[in-house]
């Protein structure tokens, strides 16, 4: 029997003979990353990405795709190509400077139990 699994969420799909390697990139619209402010008082949070021909269309698509149920009061879209990110490969050296500075945390300091409100 062809090997199958229910891994595809909506039901069983075949595992064999299905190409899965990343294929050639042929999208005609650039990729945008989408950030939504859920409500006043909260930061914008990354929610996903989408394709759009230009910035304005990206905003409209983001509204239709990520805020169909009042999930947001404000949206940012930014072209994925314009984002600079730290690389996971250099994770250790890149974040090392903050690793050895325990004195930046309040728990570093011993204060007697009977001193109030500190």
């Amino acid at each position, binding site marked *: 029997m062809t090997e199958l699994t229910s891994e595809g969420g909506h039901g*069983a*799909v075949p*595992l064999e003979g299905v190409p899965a390697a990343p*294929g050639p990139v042929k999208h005609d619209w650039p990729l945008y990353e989408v950030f939504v402010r859920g409500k006043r008082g909260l930061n914008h949070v990354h929610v*996903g*990405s989408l394709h759009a021909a230009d910035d304005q269309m990206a905003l409209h698509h983001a509204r239709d*795709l990520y805020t169909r149920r009042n999930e947001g009061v404000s949206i940012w879209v930014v072209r994925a190509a314009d984002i600079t990110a730290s690389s*996971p*490969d250099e994770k250790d050296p890149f974040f090392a400077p903050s690793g050895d500075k325990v004195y930046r945390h309040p728990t570093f300091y011993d204060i007697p139990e009977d001193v109030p409100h500190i």
Partner: protein
Amino acid sequence: MTATVPALEEHFEHTIERDQRIEPRDWVPEGYRKTMIRQIAQHAHSEIIGMQPEGNWITRAPSLRRKAILLAKVQDEAGHGLYLYSAAATLGADRADLTDKLITGRQKYSSIFNYPTLTFADVGVIGWLVDGAAICNQVPLCRSSYGPYARAMIRICKEESFHQRQGYELLMTMMKGTDQQREMVQEAVNRWWWPSLMMFGPPDADSPNTAQSMAWKVKRHTNDELRQRFVDMSVPQAEALGVTFPDPDLKWNAERGHYDFGAVDWDEFKNVLKGNGPCNAQRIAHRRRAHEDGAWVREAAVAHAGKKERK
């Protein structure tokens, strides 16, 4: 700094062991990348193709209320497909390429969508049983080891709950109607029950790949576990609705604490999967037509964006 492959592999295994998530730019074994792309792409395709069976009834919904609900639901399916294509893109898969693989039949979608929707009761039964089965499959996927997929699944599961409830409510309304309407519901249940059980895939004994998927925590329960959970959930719902499932072997087993049920016809399943289901050709032809008919819109939008940029 370049880490060696064994070191990278160890870091990957360690991340999964600690139940932490794998994120887009992490090093992953090629097998994991392929498994995730295949899983996410086939899931995305299922959502997109899944718009068709119910879309069939939008223009013929019996009231404005039902039409609005159905429109919202079908729009959600499109949204779910897009969340998932977006998650697949983080693994290096290109959405246009995935669409191409779908309409040329190289990547698959769930075979459940190759069955026709013959009456309006089908809309209700799809919401109740098909989306109910999908929820059983999908809830554990919210804890998938691949971060973007798990996050997409959380969004999807929240919305899926509306899908199931609107279907059940629709059926309850029909069950309060005429004898003819009640028969229509029972007849739709009879057609969808077995295909819904097939959604969980073949028995565990025939699914050797499950072990690797479980080890990578991209699958959390076996096919049989999920199928049993679905049957146990559905029986009391059917009783509340006043319908029966077309399975003479379905009965409570006090010893196991579960319902026993009859054997699934895997030959039918394999046959539908091979492309011989009632609607396989129609579904792909429709998707291809929509894609090709939309080409000029995509091109015009690019031309417009270019013109604005030059100004």
